[in-house]
């Protein structure tokens, strides 16, 4: 069994209300709170699609057992706060450019918990994907328009595919 939990949000949203209003050609302030919510919704959807954190978070990752070498999900990782095995601190080494691979010094272990902080991704393509997504959410308030079903725009997926990893 593996589990991942968000302890807290550290970073701020990548795009602002003004960015969205400029992109979506919105001239009024009436929907500002609605747009704020849509920005968060778009960001969460994009994070789940690429299995990476767009804004920095404090996370805890739990594994029932491991062979001693594993990747942390939702990388890149800024720092690792603690690694425990059966609630006892376990010595470890961090490997890789994004700090996402942990190697336990003592090899295989059980009930491993890792608390870490992700870096987030501040990138023009991610911003563009989020802007397109928020604009789509703003202009289409329901799933159905006449007889067609609105889906997540293909362009948003195309922009995000470069960053996609898999967390199963």
């Amino acid at each position, binding site marked *: 069994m593996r589990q991942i939990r968000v302890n807290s949000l550290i970073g701020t949203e990548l795009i602002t209300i003004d960015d969205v209003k400029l992109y979506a*050609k919105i*001239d*009024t302030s*009436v929907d500002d709170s609605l747009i704020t919510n849509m920005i968060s919704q778009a960001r969460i959807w994009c994070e789940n699609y690429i299995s990476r954190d767009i804004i920095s978070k404090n996370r805890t990752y739990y594994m029932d057992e491991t062979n001693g070498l594993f990747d942390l999900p939702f990388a890149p990782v800024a720092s690792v706060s603690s690694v425990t095995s059966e609630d006892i601190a376990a010595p470890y080494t961090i490997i890789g450019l994004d700090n996402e691979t942990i190697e336990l010094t003592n090899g295989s272990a059980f009930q491993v918990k890792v608390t870490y902080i992700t870096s987030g991704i501040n990138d023009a393509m991610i911003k563009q994907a989020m802007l397109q997504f928020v*604009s789509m959410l703003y*202009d289409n*308030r329901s799933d159905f328009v006449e007889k067609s079903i609105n889906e997540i725009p293909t362009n948003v997926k195309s922009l995000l595919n470069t960053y996609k990893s898999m967390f199963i």
Partner: protein
Amino acid sequence: MNAGHLNERVNVLRLTKTADGYGGYVQSYATSSTIWAKKRQKSGNIELQAGAISTFTEVEFIVRDQTAKEKIQDTDVIQVVGETEKYRINEIVEHEYKEFVKLRCTKID
């Protein structure tokens, strides 16, 4: 209808009265706000009126519904930024897409 179609910047002109210093008023148009719109020409009839050839140009501006409610009045005049032509609003009707309205306008000299 998506945001990319709103590709014209238009001024909403409102009639204002200023004192002329002689007890009267001078009316002039002043820019009330500048908004995003899509301009579509609907017709450009050329007619003979009173022995002179006149062109009646009808255009349609598509704007966001909320923008129209907040920033446009029935007596306003629309002018595309960078152009000199002005358009009087004849009708404000709902667009096929929710959240947008059409301003049916006629060019005024």
